[in-house]
């Protein structure tokens, strides 16, 4: 279970995070929904350990991991730009995290193949990542993030770079994958429909604060304030 308490992060005196308290239960998928500039990506980066918070703690199952370096947290993060390794093949990308775990080469190969099957990319292993389409790159990035079975899966606008048709198809696949793996996940998006389709619970974020959490349906029915009502399109 992930828990953050009072997370604050400032850049040049401006608060990107202004005290974020958020809990993600085991096996729960929480979507962080908010307009751009609201601090969603910063939240992921602080939880990941890529940025140090100026105040507040990050806890995993009650244990304080705020000072644990990012590569030892066993948290996975999928970037909006995918950040695929340009010098490695599809399989090389997916195998990377498994190799870092110190698994035997046989085990790495087996689990790489398995992860590629999850995203319907079996047979793509030997291809360079450069020639892939946008949708294929997205699936490689997803397989790469899920393959080492991280304790927490974080996805930063994972479908943001794709066109609408593809997004609608892949949102279903992504949801199914997260469910099947029983993943505990934090899913950042600015798209209501996507948040609703993927997540058990939605956290609305604005100006570095979480203003309301709950199922999107509930939030629509009982918005906390006028801004939330306007943002989620309450009747």
């Amino acid at each position, binding site marked *: 279970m992930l828990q953050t308490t009072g997370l604050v992060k400032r850049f040049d005196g401006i608060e990107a995070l202004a005290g974020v308290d958020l809990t993600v239960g085991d096996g729960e998928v929480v979507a962080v929904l908010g307009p751009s500039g609201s601090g969603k990506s*910063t939240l992921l980066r602080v939880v990941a350990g*890529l940025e140090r918070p100026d105040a507040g703690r990050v806890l995993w199952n009650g244990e304080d991991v705020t000072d644990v370096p990012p*590569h030892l947290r066993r*948290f996975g993060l999928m970037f909006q*730009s995918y950040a695929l*390794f340009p010098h490695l093949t599809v399989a090389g990308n997916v195998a990377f995290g498994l190799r870092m775990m110190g698994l035997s080469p046989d085990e790495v190969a087996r689990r790489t193949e398995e992860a590629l099957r999850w995203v319907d990319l079996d047979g793509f292993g030997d291809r360079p990542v450069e020639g892939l389409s946008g949708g294929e790159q997205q699936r490689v990035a997803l397989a790469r993030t899920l393959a080492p079975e991280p304790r927490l899966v974080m996805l930063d606008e994972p479908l943001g770079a794709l066109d609408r048709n593809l997004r609608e198809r892949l949102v279903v696949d992504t949801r199914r994958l997260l469910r099947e793996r029983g993943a505990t996940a934090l899913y950042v998006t600015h798209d209501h429909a996507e948040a609703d389709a993927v997540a058990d619970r939605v956290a609305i974020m604005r100006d570095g604060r979480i203003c309301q959490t709950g199922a999107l349906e509930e939030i629509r029915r009982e918005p906390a304030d006028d801004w939330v009502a306007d943002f989620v399109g309450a009747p």
Partner: protein
Amino acid sequence: MDRRLDRDRPAIGTRRLTLALAALPVAFLGYLFVYPVGRVLWLALAGEPGTAFTRVLADPRMRGSAWFTLWQAGLSTALTLLAAFPLTWAVARYRFWGRRLVRALVTVPFVLPTVVVGTAFVALGLDGSLAAILAAHVFYNMAVVVRTVGGLWSRLDPDLVDSARALGASPWRAFRTVTLPLLRPAIAAASSIVFLFTFTSFGVVLILGNLRWRTIEVEIYHQAITFLRLPAAGALAVLQMVGVTAILVLYSRYQERRAVRMRLVAEHQTLRRPTGVRLKVAVAAAVLGTTAAVMIPLGGLVVASFANGGAGWRFLTQPGPLATRPVEAIGNSLAFAAVATLMAVAVGTLSALVVSRGSGLVSRWFDVVLMLPLGTSAVTIGFGFLVALDRPVDLRATWILVPLAHALVAVPFVVRAAAPILRSVRPEVREAATMLGASPRRVFAEIDLPIVARAVAVGAGFAAAISLGEFGATSFIVRPNTITIPTLIFRLLSRPGSVSFAAAMAMAVLLAALTAALIMAVDRVRAGEVGSF
């Protein structure tokens, strides 16, 4: 998205690091480029103000060379466009067997050293004629048109032409009123590049012009080396720089004005199979005609190298008509290429790191300064070395001068090859590795190192190929004990006698093979890379 802008701005420490990385390249360019070119300018401007220029402009011989430079460049460009048109059309519009092969084939002359191109036309027995110079220029530059114009043409939305046809335009009319105007930016780009290359043509004209046809470049060489009239050579070099700058300025003005935004589609959506007998014959004629135009000079060169019962090849290992034995020239060339590659890769990779480290003012200015040697002719660089590098120590008497010149010519190419590869290591890529459990040391070993190594390998391949074929700068600074393959070929060609002739041909074949091998190796490393030229 949230705070990304802030993270991209380099912190103070990063800027200091950027400046430190830039130190060696700046010193290198300062001493080997800015200072020598400054000395050339000084040569032309010292003494009575303007005298050197007035003399040059009053001299009918030099006026003739300047005029010839201009009109042959214009004519060569027009002929190149015409000659490249059939193949450009065929590969841009149609899918056929051997399409990629013929595209690669037409690129071969472009990567060959100019000395080899010149020698190939000597092999055909055409030297001394204007036709040979023009033909060699066309042969060398066709690839520019096929790649630049064909590249855009194959990505034009086919619906545009189809709409014009549906509105009643004949195929020719649709081409003239739709396709051609849309291709204009690419045609202008290709024409500018070809004009620039032929305007500064040196090796080809020196070899094929037989002293009768002279570009400004060749004239600088004669004035400086044959007549030892250094101020005149300096004035010519300045005129040449003014000409090159004017071409580049005109070109960029035109590009700005003409920037039409249009929708491009993927190549595989536009290519069609040629249907009907007439179309098939036309495509086949374009492909076979171009293939012949490329293969005949190359084939002629190989055949000529075996003339005289293979004397040319036997000569490679024996003392021959010249004081220097060919093996020594080959040894020199390989050694210089190794040294020049080391220097160019060190300077070029550091420069590429600076350029790719961000969008700061330092990086942007540095990028511009780095490309200056590209806009300056190799002849001017060689001439500058000759007049300037006697201080603080007289480098002109040492062998290091030649690889230094080669490294300077190669650096912009190394930067152009390495920078896009280095740029692909975005901070997020490192962070992704971190999130997958890689410690900082492993991130460096698994991400930075392999990618930089690849950039270095590609840069090294280009640098070595450039060094092996470099002729313009080398011809100014070469000494009997530092003779290289291209300069030896030139000397052999200037001598009468069938053994010299066959030997020159054999050396040219050897040089072509070495260059081709290097370029092919680079291509393998680069496979899948999105390069910038």
